């Protein structure tokens, strides 16, 4: 599985796996098919994959994490709302993904992005008059509060933190630090977004 890559060979394990699964576009499939004809190393990769017929472990039944039981449907902002929220933003937006990840709760909207250095950026948008924000992060089955609090007031805030499981992380902000003191009781006044 760790066979060295001869120079000139350009097919990765991922591309070979996808080819054998029938994934990927037609052009990509043609490229890999040609490599399979021309390159002994590629043929060996394909053979190793095909010959691996070990069975998959069973997937056990696992209960949902407690915070998943919260009704989070209200957090998904309809497109028209996102467009309206975008007007609040006065800072640079280039570093952030499209506003489709922005979700609103109460008077707040929150967006997240993962910067190139791996830090999580948090942008909170709120109307004038809100001074105090609370932020809480659900990562896997753990809950934590980043040391650096976002501030608000119609401006972009780049919070800084890193998480180990970005695919399983939800960031929530609410008005007032007290609001996030008991994460299980976060209600519709909190704005939450999955990191990815």
């Amino acid at each position: 599985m760790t066979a060295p890559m001869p120079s000139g060979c350009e097919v990765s394990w991922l591309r070979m796996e996808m080819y054998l699964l029938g994934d990927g576009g037609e052009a990509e499939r043609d490229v890999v098919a040609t490599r399979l004809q021309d390159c002994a190393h590629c043929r060996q990769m394909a053979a190793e994959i095909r010959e691996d017929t070990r069975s998959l472990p069973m997937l056990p039944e696992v209960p949902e994490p407690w915070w998943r039981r919260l009704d989070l449907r209200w957090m998904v902002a309809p497109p028209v709302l996102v467009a309206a929220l975008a007007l609040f933003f006065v800072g640079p937006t280039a570093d952030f993904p499209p506003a489709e990840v922005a979700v609103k709760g109460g008077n707040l909207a929150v967006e997240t992005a993962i910067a190139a250095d791996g830090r999580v950026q948090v942008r909170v948008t709120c109307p004038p008059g809100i001074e105090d924000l609370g932020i809480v992060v659900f990562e896997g089955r753990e809950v934590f509060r980043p040391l650096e609090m976002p501030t608000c007031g119609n401006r972009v805030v780049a919070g800084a933190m890193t998480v180990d499981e970005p695919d399983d992380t939800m960031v929530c902000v609410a008005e007032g630090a007290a609001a996030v003191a008991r994460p299980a009781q976060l209600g519709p006044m909190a704005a939450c977004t999955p990191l990815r």
Partner: protein
Amino acid sequence: MDFYRRYGPAVLRKCERMLGNRQDAEDIVQNLFIDLIRKGRTDVGLAYLYRAATTRSLNVIRNRKRRQELLDRHGEALRPRGMGTEGEVVTAELLAELARQLDPKTLEILVYAHQDHMSQQEISSLCGLSRKTVGKRLQRARVTLESLAGGAP
């Protein structure tokens, strides 16, 4: 679950390359698919699963106890079962050592380049990084790799 049956084997092979151990790889794959199925995210493709599996495997490798176990094996059990040992191959054992020396993002990119044999272009689109950034990170990783090859860690 069709999603699991379809992609599980490929992700399992991927994790096994990183961890050098079938049992640990199975744990990661089970947890990853359970989480995705629970979230209703069964629409993702293999590229996404590769990234998620890489992140989770690196988390395991960074765990010090686990890393020590790997290092204690002195590579015997982890000898590549492929075509030989020459070339820029990062074994699970070496990866455990590199985890001590490289930052997480560089380590991730190194895995894609030296274990998964991805091109810089492929890594660039997989990670959403510029090709220049990928190149710089790989350069940094190569220096560390060479220093490990040149002397005892």
